[in-house]
């Protein structure tokens, strides 16, 4: 999938996505009628102020949640047609995640954390593949450490290694530098963009850091649940 030629294959499409939740004050619209298509290999930043619906959009695109209306097509599969396990299988095959708060499994060491998605996807060479990718993020000597023994930056490197381990078609990153100081953040993003380039993964980056967004090729701006602009970034 990652070797699909760039420019023609649509890897991710949002079709009139809406999300309402019920609250004590009645129904609340978080996302309204959002549509776009993302091509394989693109790097896209999703920006907007707090409460604009960025995280909700991410959750819907990755199949972590279902839209109230509309549907998401991820790598050819309509996520609304699948049950939870079906969506999990799609994620195991074509999705990687990097989270703001790292989300490593505390009971597994760095290498085992990286092996986890490989094993879940049923890959046979999980250990050696994980070793390779952990070396790429610069943690060759720290692979046996547990999350509690790693610094914030190191944790995020492990998370990035984990996200790229399965060579996913789409990588979702939710404020990946939000818990890091700016220097570490920059290093982390360098690693991420480098891996993105070398493995031609599609990158969807949720952030409110304008600088970070500027490093992407395209920017989707949300405000109050509406897609207000979809623009190429002139870098």
């Amino acid at each position, binding site marked *: 999938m990652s070797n699909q030629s760039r420019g023609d294959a649509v890897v991710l499409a949002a079709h009139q996505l809406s999300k309402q939740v019920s609250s004590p004050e009645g129904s609340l619209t978080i996302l309204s009628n959002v549509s776009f298509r993302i091509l394989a290999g693109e790097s896209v930043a999703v920006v907007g102020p707090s409460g604009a619906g960025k995280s909700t959009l991410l*959750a819907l695109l990755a199949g972590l949640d279902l839209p109230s209306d509309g549907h998401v097509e991820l790598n050819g599969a309509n996520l609304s047609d699948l049950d939870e396990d079906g969506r999990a299988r799609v994620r*195991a095959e074509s999705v990687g995640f990097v989270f703001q708060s790292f989300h*490593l*499994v505390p*009971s*597994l060491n760095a290498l085992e954390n990286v092996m*986890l998605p490989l094993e*879940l*996807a049923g890959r046979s060479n999980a250990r050696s593949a994980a070793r390779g990718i952990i070396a790429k993020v610069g943690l060759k000597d720290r692979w046996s450490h547990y999350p509690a023994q790693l610094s914030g930056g190191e*944790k995020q490197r492990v998370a990035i290694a984990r996200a790229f381990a399965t060579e996913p078609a789409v990588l979702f990153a939710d404020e990946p530098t939000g818990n890091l100081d700016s220097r570490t953040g920059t290093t982390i993003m360098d690693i991420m963009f480098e891996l993105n380039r070398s493995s031609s993964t599609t990158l969807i980056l949720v952030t409110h850091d304008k600088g970070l967004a500027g490093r992407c090729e395209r920017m989707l701006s949300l405000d109050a649940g509406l897609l207000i602009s979809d623009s190429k970034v002139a870098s």
Partner: protein
Amino acid sequence: MRALSFAMRSFGRELRSGEVMVLLAAVILAVSALTAVGFLTDRIGKAVARQANEVLAADLRLRSQDPIPELWRDMATDYDLRTADIVLFPTVVFAGDDSALSTVLAVSNGYPLRGSVRIADHLFSEQREASGIPGPGEVWADSALLGRVGADVGDSLAVGELHLRIAAVVTYRPDQSIGFASLAPSLLMNIDDISASGLVGEGSRVRYSLLVAGDEADVSAFNDAIQDELPGSVRVRNQEESGERAANAANRAQRFLSLTTIISLLLSAVAVAMSARRFAHRRMDTVALMKSLGATQRFVISVALVQLVMLGVIGVIAGSAVGFVAEELLSWILTDIIGGDLPAPGIMPVVLASGSAMVLLVGFALPSLIQLRNTPPLRVLRHDAMPPSPSRILVAGLSLAAVAALLYRSVGDAAMLVILLGGIVVITTALYVVGRGLVALMGYFRSGVGVAWRYGLANVARRGRASAVQVVAFGLGLTVLLLLTLVRTDLLESWRATLDEDAPNHFLINIQRSERDSVANIMKSQGVGVPDFAPLVRARMTMINGVSVKKRAYPEADARRFVSREQNLSWASTLSSSNEIIAGEWWPAGYKGVPLVSIEEEVAAETGLTLGDRLQFEIAGQELEAKITSIRKINWDSFQPNFFLVLSPGALDDYPATFIASMRVEPDERAVLLDLVRAHPTISVIDLDSILQQVRGIIDKASLAVEAVFIFTLAAGVAVLFAAVQSTIDERRFESAMLRALGATRRTVFSGVMAEFAALGIAAGILASAGASILAAVIAVELFELPYTFSPLLWIVGVTAGLVVVCASGYFAARSAVDSSPIDVLRGTPA
């Protein structure tokens, strides 16, 4: 497979991190309590099974109060059967000045016909199978007997008029009756020494047995042949019914002990449920993450199940080891009560405990783990996304089913199970309500205390439900321990206090008519008061109102045994001071008319006998009829000779009688007993003080064993507290960090936490003291018929114990919350 490897990998780490420790500890506790009792009952059960076939030491046993006529021995020989004789009687034996009541078995060659006697050359030395019986001039004695008189093999023992050499220690004999030794330890001697001992004479309390064994068909033919011929005084016992009786007694002991483990089991279940919920909660983030990475529900469930099974396996292994050690301790405590040695335990208790551990985990831990399956993957982005709570009906149903499954084995009867389950639900609810009440009461004191106490009491009130559960968990364990220690000694003491200081402490039995004057003279010469002699005539009841006792219907099952056994009749002209007429009238002074009889009230109630009924007795082949004219209530605590059936004067004059007497002999007057027994060896002296002491010793040991089992209950209470504290530990860490950030010293925060446990401990102590007091009052009034006296000591000890135990456990459980660095906690450093 993937799930398996993942489960194992992360489980090892979780085990090391202590995350699942409380859950594991609860399982280990439940398994240890179950296996400790399981091993013990298994060993007793095996001993019973081993003995069931040899409990008679024969295939048939003919028993009588009179010598068994040659006729039957010859007849057995005609049927190609082997025979042996036993003459059994109680007597006091002496070693120097020490004496002890013992049961003498004088046996003939061939004893035992089934099974074998095991002996040792010295006290506590290696035992071996005995060949033959003690030679003439020799005895084999029970270790308990040797202990009481301070003798060992090689010493001499005075038995009646004989001095016999102790040749061996008996460690086991097949007919020692189901493994629970009788009060008086036994002594084996050769039947040929009997006549020289002078112990067996007219009217002695002797039981004669003829043992018969041989080919099954011959035994059965012999049994059929004698059935109709045997006189009423000879009873036949066969193996089947004897084995059954032994097994029943063992089953009852087993059920009692199993039921005592149930409280520990239920508390462990609470701890399992609480810590499983915490465990599941902690795993939610990981599960959400795995799902976001593509894990399916099946994978999540498989991981949970594998980990549950691993937890169970470790729990069973560790618990069985603890249980094994605990059982060694229990059987050591009970050595004196369980006669003889016990066979090694089998694997069955471990199998049952494993099953129970799994039931416990499935019933109480599984619901929380199943809930994990439904963790929304969205939780990786939104931390407040929670799985839907498991259905209350499912949780309640599973736990109730688990409790029922665990109880079923101990109860073994569906109707009883329903009653017991109902009882548990009612008692648990009641205790919980009381617990909530106490917790609410604690909150009431909040306004009048300092900051640390206010913080502590506020926490108790805020976590009302969990607090109440902890109060009940500790309260239960403490109640039982208070009952078994303080209340038990209190009751025994107050019972002793009700006894008359001058109450007789010795019984003389088997005094012949001709010996009365001599006995009185010996007493007089030593300055000891001359006792009253009460006559005793052996009789058998044959008819009631002209109907055979065998054909009559009785209100209670025990009555049939009472009317068909040999009766001790007495007569008296005046009513004993320890008796009181409650119906009818005592005969007038100087009455010499037709025989009348006065009957004891409980016997009257059980047998349905009442005023005006005519009782017919057979005494030494003659018939006697007497009419019931009064019903008496007896004060048994008087320790005077008392009889269920007392006849009017003159009614028994023509029949052979022996006499019994009771008297008080002070410790410095005991020499008179020696003189008495030497002059009249057939008279048996029964020392009530030493019997009371023996009974007390047995009660002490039995309660110690039950206390040991209830230590598990207390430990389960500790597990509940740990589980409760652990489930709030994040909250506690945060609060403690907040308070310290606001300027509270570590000491203040710590005092607040300890104040919370102190409040819980006091509440648990109050619950336990109240529970023990109520039970003590019920036991005192209903069982012992003693007035209940309020014991402040019980409350002091109860509340102090609650305070100390809960504070100590709480300190260890919550220490980390107080110790953690405020800045780390408030920053919430993510993983």
